[in-house]
């Protein structure tokens, strides 16, 4: 028999449990409590939701088998072109690939970054999008197809840019912050940004969360009428919504007269907003697609009003899955920035100096980006070569497109838009319910009984 344990619980003589950290109060949570206590301001950052979410990774394609035959890679055509805005616009926008570049402002991004995005997208026959702050000459010059955003702030808004855009996007919300306005801290408001936005240099700029001259779908219908009248009914008009109530928001956008509906899930990035907003408002991209498609189908508008899906699109597989669930195209933002050099491990030493690490850098609002992308400091911005950056983006878009075609051919599709939900199964019960496809190996689609 051994001796009774030391009553004083001496760690030298008594077996101990290993130290256990709380799952609720994990290290990140503790660090945030300390940060808040020290600074008295909420955590502001860029990017989209970082928490783990049900996503396209939780879906698989079935491929071809006895009942469906595949197409021969490299020999049998698999079309990728898409036309956006065929409902009302006399000049719809024609893209060679169904992958567009999402709205990102000059101001949040450097002029070099905007130029790189324009070069890369143009090389692949797709579009880029302006952002909160208006259209610059550089981005118009380097983007063959440019979508002009109409945002609540209307910074830099003018009818000449409206008329020289290829499409118009009325932004109701974005996935990172449905219901939130914009924020650009003073560090990034240099003289050029300030003058484009009619604001004093160096002040914190607050963008409104609601449009100044309309609220609700009935007003929006009249706003769209005005935009069409100003541009002689030529331009496709998109309505961009943050994924929150995608069924109703899509239906109301169609009612208001949209040619294209853009649904942005919570993984979609922002230049800067409160972390609490990014992580706790809105729904994942995967959960939004089928509901948006259902609204279009019930109105007999599927493929007539086009649906663009964004938020966490990273690969041709993500594109293929979004299209199979009913989208007409996707948009990328974060992935495009990574392609041109954002968060590159080659800059690790500099990320360390900023108190972060490559892959985690998200203090885009502070304007100190060593990659020269989310900054207005000339010495940093000039590090980004727009030609090289454009080339990298074009390469990345080409790879995504080839991946998309590979998956489409494997499922026997000669056009990527022929991908369908029946080509998919889900790996998790959650994804099966959200995507409305069976759990792999079963006939069970949770929620379909209702």
């Amino acid at each position: 028999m051994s001796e009774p344990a030391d009553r004083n619980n001496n760690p030298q003589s008594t077996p101990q449990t290993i130290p256990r950290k709380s799952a609720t109060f994990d290290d990140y949570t503790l660090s945030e409590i300390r940060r808040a206590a020290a600074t008295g301001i909420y955590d502001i950052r860029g990017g989209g939701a970082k928490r783990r979410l049900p996503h396209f990774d939780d879906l698989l394609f079935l491929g071809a088998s006895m009942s469906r035959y595949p197409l021969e890679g490299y020999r049998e055509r698999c079309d990728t072109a898409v036309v956006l805005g065929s409902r009302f616009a006399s000049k719809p926008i024609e893209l060679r690939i169904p992958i567009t570049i999402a709205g990102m402002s000059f101001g949040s991004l450097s002029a070099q970054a905007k130029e790189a995005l324009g070069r890369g997208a143009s090389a692949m026959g797709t579009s880029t999008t302006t952002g909160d702050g208006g259209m610059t000459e550089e981005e118009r010059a380097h983007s063959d197809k440019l979508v002009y955003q109409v945002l609540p702030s209307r910074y830099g808004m003018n009818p000449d840019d409206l008329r020289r855009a290829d499409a118009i996007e009325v932004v109701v919300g974005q996935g990172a912050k449905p219901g939130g306005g914009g924020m650009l801290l003073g560090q990034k408001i240099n003289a050029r940004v300030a003058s484009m936005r009619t604001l004093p240099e160096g002040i914190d700029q607050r963008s409104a969360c609601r449009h100044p001259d309309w609220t609700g779908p009935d007003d929006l219908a009249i706003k769209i009428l005005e935009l069409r009248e100003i541009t002689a009914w030529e331009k496709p008009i998109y309505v961009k919504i943050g994924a929150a109530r995608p069924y109703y928001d899509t239906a109301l956008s169609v009612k208001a007269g949209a040619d294209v509906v853009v649904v942005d899930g919570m993984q979609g990035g922002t230049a800067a907003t409160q972390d609490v907003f990014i992580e706790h408002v809105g729904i994942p991209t995967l959960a939004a697609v089928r509901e948006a498609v259902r609204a279009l189908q019930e109105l007999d508008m599927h493929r007539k009003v086009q649906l663009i899906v964004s938020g966490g699109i990273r690969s041709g597989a993500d594109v293929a899955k979004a299209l199979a669930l009913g989208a007409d195209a996707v948009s990328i933002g974060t992935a495009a920035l990574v392609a041109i050099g954002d968060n590159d491990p080659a800059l690790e030493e500099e990320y360390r100096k900023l108190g972060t690490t490559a892959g985690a850098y998200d203090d885009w609002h502070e304007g100190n980006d060593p990659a020269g992308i989310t900054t207005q400091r000339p010495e940093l911005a000039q590090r980004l070569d727009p030609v090289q950056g454009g080339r990298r983006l074009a390469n990345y878009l080409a790879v995504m497109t080839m991946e998309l075609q590979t998956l489409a051919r494997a499922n026997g599709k000669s056009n990527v838009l022929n991908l369908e939900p029946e080509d998919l199964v889900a790996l998790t019960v959650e994804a099966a319910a959200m995507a409305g496809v069976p759990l792999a190996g079963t006939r069970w689609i949770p929620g379909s009984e209702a």
Partner: protein
Amino acid sequence: MTTKPIDLDSAFLSLREVNAALQAATSGAFRVLNPGGEHALACGLDAAIEVTIDGHAGYYCGGMNKHASITVSGNAGTGCAENIMSGAVRVRGDVSQSLAATGHGGLVVVEGSASARAGISMKGVDIVVGGDVGHMSAFMAQAGHLVVLGDAGTDLGDSIYEAEIFVRGAVASLGADCEEKPLDEEHKAVLDLLLQRAGFNVDPAAFRRYGSARRLYHFSVDHMGEY
């Protein structure tokens, strides 16, 4: 007007036909008859023409105007002269919400009263209202002038940036970060010119001046109560 205006009759022409005719014109004077409160009338004009809307206009009349002089003989709806760049819009009656919202330049005159959010997010436009303005007028106003001969509703100039507000009557309340400022001779001169351009013969000395206290220009936890 030196020449007889060209009549465009909304009783017979579609909105597109009326606007296309106005947008294609490079000079001259036009009258839109029987407007019937139609929306988006005379929007997107880009030349120094004169347009009279002979009656009431709906939403966004004169929206994004450049160079043209537009007069509405009746009332106008929401967002009249929204995002105006230059030229002038005059309304003889009253207007609804969001008058000259985000306007970048030009002159907007309302002889009657304006509803809520007149001059919201204005970016350089000059606005003169003969009557009263509703609540939250000049909300987030960035640049330009809002002149009110009557009274202003609650929360005037909330979150205002560098725009200037002149009110002759009573102000129900000021919004966050808006404060009264001294009306010096230089301000009276600016105001006098605005009143003359708008066609109002009143004494600038009778107005009070309001603008940004600039306390919200940088985020601080100590100003939390104001957000």
